[in-house]
């Protein structure tokens, strides 16, 4: 397992604090933009949940790819560089957790919006079903991690992450394959797609802000997981040393 990690002091580094401060500014400004954007023609103020739904929905398709990349790196480094493999595994866990968080918020805001736009909370159309599937896949990933025996968690999780990531393109393509009640892809979905120019700043600022917040969460979770690995490692080494110490004491006593 992990052999040596430089023990850092237990506070956040300066650059991370700066990042967090910038993130809060972006979030506040994004909120202001979302509330200041003009009322939508048919839905009135209710549509504003869109500014939160869209970033979360899009970003919850980004973090799985970070998870996939980390899982590949883990499998690559597993036999070559234990230290880097452990880091990749910690990153995979962090990005999977943030995927679940963002997909949960994406689903919840989507349901709120669906209730306002279509009058129903949930419709079993292709896009929503496959998005739910994305959520299920990463909840399942986290479950498997918690079920598996120590020492094999990382391998099983990495393999499962690859399978889950293969499922995502099928999910993403579904909007083109299947007839669907969900509005056509907002960006790049054909002639009538796109949004009113007056809403662009709100969309962009919220996109940036939530991406920064997501990145911060992944980094934070990664740091915590690395420390957990470090503590587990230290504990294992500590026990070893105690046993060795006991054996040595015993031998010394015998020698007397």
């Amino acid at each position, binding site marked *: 397992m992990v052999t040596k990690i430089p023990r850092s002091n237990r506070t956040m580094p300066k650059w991370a604090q700066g990042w967090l401060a910038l993130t809060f500014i972006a979030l506040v400004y994004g909120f202001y933009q979302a509330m200041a954007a003009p009322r939508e023609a048919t839905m009135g103020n209710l549509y504003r949940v869109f500014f939160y739904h869209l970033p979360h929905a899009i970003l919850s398709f980004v973090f799985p790819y970070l998870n996939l990349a980390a899982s590949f790196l883990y499998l690559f480094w597993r036999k070559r560089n234990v230290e880097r493999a452990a880091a990749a595994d910690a990153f995979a866990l962090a990005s999977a957790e943030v995927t679940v968080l963002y997909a949960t918020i994406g689903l919840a805001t989507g349901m709120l919006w669906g209730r306002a736009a279509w009058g129903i909370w949930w419709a079993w159309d292709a896009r929503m079903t496959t998005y739910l599937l994305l959520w299920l896949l990463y909840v*399942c990933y986290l479950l498997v991690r918690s079920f598996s025996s120590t020492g094999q968690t990382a391998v099983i999780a990495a393999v499962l992450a690859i399978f889950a990531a293969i499922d995502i393109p099928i999910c993403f393509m579904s909007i083109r*394959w299947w007839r669907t009640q969900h509005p056509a892809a907002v960006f790049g979905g054909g002639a009538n797609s796109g949004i009113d120019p007056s809403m662009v700043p709100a969309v962009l600022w919220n996109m940036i802000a939530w991406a920064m917040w997501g990145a911060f969460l992944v980094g934070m979770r990664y740091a915590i997981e690395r420390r957990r690995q470090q503590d587990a490692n230290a504990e294992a080494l500590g026990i070893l040393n105690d046993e060795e110490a006991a054996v040595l004491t015993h031998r010394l006593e015998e020698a007397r």
Partner: protein
Amino acid sequence: MNYAQHVLTHLRKDLRLEWRTKDSINGMLFFALLVVVVLAMAFDPASYPDMTRQISGGLLWVALLFAAMTALNQSWARETHNSVLDAHRLSEAPASALFIGKALANFLFVSAVEVVLAPIFTVFYNLQPLGQTWKLLIILPLGTWALVVNGTFFSALSLRTRNRETLLPLVLLPISMPALLAMIQATTAVLTGQFEPTLWIKVLLAYVIVFTTACVLLFQTVLSAD
């Protein structure tokens, strides 16, 4: 021995094991039959032929999926007695040959169950398909392989976890969802005759190709996980 011979040897071993005990097939068959009976309590299949046609595709696949899961859970447990799995890991035979052999064996078992279950299903549910029934000869094997290839893989994966019986459905169901959708839609298309199953057969085919490749490539990693 070349690769095909390795696969055949593994397949023959699994078939012989099953022939001697008949655990998997008997268990699956009875389980699927029970699911069919239980589902008949949810609605009256004989009185509403239209509705029966609409939902029978889904019911058939759900019965088969649950039945297959009972057998898949056991299929690697056999290999853990007397540390046979460790012997496999030491042998020079490629790990993926072991996987393909076992997946083929499971495929044959589930297909055997289908051969028995399909007529029973048709009689019990008073089913009169309106589409081209011969297309089921494409859909059933494709769908079965889609379930079995991932099922065999994840069953090997869950050998490494604490509560393996619980884990298999938890992993297999979400991963198989696109395949399930495709096979249910294709079967419904054939039963109702209202639309063409071609698109769904293609989806199923793509799914099968992609996931068979992934399973074959990653099996070595799973077999030597510790």
